């Protein structure tokens, strides 16, 4: 009954994301605020919209409520469509019992019916924890031109970091000859970005084969890709040179926010031709008060700044009271920094209150975190690397 689509995107929104600590205790990772007015999921979804891909399945089984509310009808990304749209896809029961997602491949296996509704030629697989702008249509065209079974987006990483990535070794034609997961001695520095284009027929066949193997961990990197390599399928690397940043840890989330403060920033969010869309929260312009001082920072709607903000990224509705200081920090929506408080090298969660004279973070060392909805006590100290909150 649905119209055919050339390509359907499946976004692996992941599990709890425990490396983000208390920030994901009650929120799915893709719903984490980023860059003042975005959530992480805005990046892959806006990329889809801008690439003309208008069916997006979001695979998740961990606390989807906030993500669900955030996605809503899909209108912020022009994905509130009769013919297409964005759908949150949790595990479901098929009669007797249901099954939770066992791995990335299994989550797509369980949603093959969703995909087949659109009778697509290709399936784009994305992950929900990277900040980047990428034209998936160009990658898809490369895949079509190369007549590949799967095309994997790769980017060069520093040689010393190759042991943190899935490394693709290719021949002179860009065909992937070998895949090494986090190799100690990498042969190349082409790291997988976790962005795949599959020819759907091939994908379906390998998903079914994988599901029938009880020993498999049902994962793309560990099972599906190696199986395809072993079977001599055509695996092609697609080079991507733009900004790309994993935000799966506290440090990297903080760093990616700080990257936006460089001039020029390594990722241009002003770009009118490639907007990153976000849900509107209906707040007025921000206000810088008579005593407010803002240096090298990003401020967005609803903010009321009467204190001093330096090298920081503040989300919507953040209040910085007179005499408060925020330095080298990320402050998430509606947090309040009270009089005399100092926040430095820290991430302050949504609706958190840094009470009068509290001190969060230190000049050096690991990032300090105050969890969502956490109210510090007056004068409380949160040391570098510490996470305050439930």
């Amino acid at each position, binding site marked *: 009954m649905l119209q055919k689509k050339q390509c359907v995107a499946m976004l692996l929104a992941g599990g709890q994301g425990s490396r983000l600590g208390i920030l994901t205790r009650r929120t799915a990772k893709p719903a984490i605020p980023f860059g003042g007015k975005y959530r992480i999921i805005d990046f892959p979804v806006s990329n889809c919209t801008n690439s003309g891909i208008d069916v997006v399945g979001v695979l998740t089984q961990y606390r989807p409520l906030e993500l669900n509310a955030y996605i809503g009808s899909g209108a912020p990304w022009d994905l509130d469509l009769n013919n297409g749209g964005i759908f949150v896809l949790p595990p479901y029961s098929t009669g007797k019992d249901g099954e939770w997602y066992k791995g990335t491949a299994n989550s797509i296996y369980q949603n093959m019916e969703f995909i087949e509704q659109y009778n697509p030629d290709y399936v784009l697989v994305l992950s929900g924890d990277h900040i980047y702008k990428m034209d998936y249509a160009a990658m898809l065209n490369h895949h079509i031109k190369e007549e590949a079974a799967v095309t994997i987006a790769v980017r060069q990483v520093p040689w010393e970091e190759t042991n943190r990535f899935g490394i693709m070794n290719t021949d002179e034609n860009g065909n992937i000859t070998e895949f090494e997961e986090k190799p100690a001695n990498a042969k190349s520095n082409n790291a997988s970005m976790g962005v795949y284009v599959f020819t759907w027929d091939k994908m379906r066949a390998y998903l079914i084969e994988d599901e029938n193997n009880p020993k498999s961990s049902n994962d793309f990197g560990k099972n599906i890709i190696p199986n395809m390599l072993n079977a001599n399928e055509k695996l092609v690397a697609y080079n991507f040179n733009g900004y790309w940043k994993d935000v799966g840890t506290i440090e990297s989330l903080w760093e990616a926010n700080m990257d936006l403060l460089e001039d020029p920033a390594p990722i241009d969010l002003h770009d009118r031709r490639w907007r990153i869309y976000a849900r509107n929260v209906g707040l007025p312009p921000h*206000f810088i008060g008579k005593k407010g001082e803002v240096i090298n920072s990003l*401020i967005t709607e609803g903010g009321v700044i009467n204190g001093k903000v330096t090298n920081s990224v503040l989300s919507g509705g953040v209040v910085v009271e007179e005499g408060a200081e925020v330095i080298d920090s990320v402050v998430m929506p509606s947090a309040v920094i009270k009089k005399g408080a100092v926040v430095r090298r820290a991430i302050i969660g949504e609706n958190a209150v840094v009470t009068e004279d509290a001190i969060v973070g230190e000049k050096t060392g690991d990032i300090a975190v105050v969890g969502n909805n956490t109210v510090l006590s007056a004068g409380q100290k949160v040391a570098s690397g510490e996470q305050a909150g439930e």
Partner: protein
Amino acid sequence: MKSDIVGLIYTGENSERLRDLTRIRSVAALPILGRYRIIDFMLSNMVNSGIHNVGIILQQNYQSLLDQLGSGREWDLHGKRAGLTLLPPFAASEHSYYTGLLDALKSNLSFLRRSKERYIAVTDSGILYSIRFEELLAEHLKNEADITLVYTKDRDARRNGVGRYLGIDENCVVKHLEVDPSIPRYENTYIGVFLVRREMLIDMVDRATSQGFHHFTREMLARFLQEGTYKVCGYQLPLKPWVIDSVQAYYHANMDALDPTVREMFFDKDRPIWTKLRDEMPTRYATGARVSNSLVADGCVIEGTVENSIIFRGVTIRPGAVVKGCIIMQDALISRNVEIENCIMDKQTTIREGGRLVSTAAYPTVVPKNLTI
């Protein structure tokens, strides 16, 4: 829950004293408070009062209103049961402009007839105000009124020689109406917003036009009051309104929003003001930025000094520039070392490097849209 009120916004009349600001747009489309247009407040007032069926009577220069309203989606007014109905002028009458609200209502009787709600709230668009229509209706019902006119006692809404003023008795009944008096006798300024039973309005319009009237207030209402045909009551607006009928009034309405207590009137967390989105990134303050007592929208790059100003979306203020007491609309560019004070820069205007433009708050200079100086 659902409201039993249909809303109608009349975007017909502009004050000539708005000059360049409304040459290219209706007053309803005038940008205000950093990211809005005046009509956003009317629509959001209605939607936040549960009204889901809104008609907009369009007149001249309505392309910018069409752009602003789009599908109505930002106000959740894009439904098929109800939503936004655009009512453009047609060559039903020979002259292509309405001579007034009464004329406009007559031309749009079919909208009034096919609406299903029992009551209708009609508003002019040259005014910025907050209202809870559900409270207006409650008052209307309590007073057993036929028609309820919304008024304010705010002094700033009074003008010598223009405006409509109401004499109201202790039972909220409107006894007298003054139109454009040289000095208003009554302190109650009618703000051009009224509520009435929908079918009664249809009758009123039929009756008034059959008598050859053109003007809703000065002719029709005045006659009805004289004859005692209907029970006309007043409802006092609880919050201050801003009448936007001149460049000065426009300037001061914006500047007043730098006062937190005024901002609180407009921006109630439970009743957000919706507007068309631009999906701009947050505003970037450079290392040399010095900003104080200013309202700043998203998508700006601020490298210079800004004081006591309203900065709209996408504005760039270069290093060394000093902006004081200004309203800088969307996508304007203030180049290096510019000095600008008490000016209104319309959309997509540019001031070239080193330029100076200084006027007084009493007579702010307007730089018209798209101009580079």
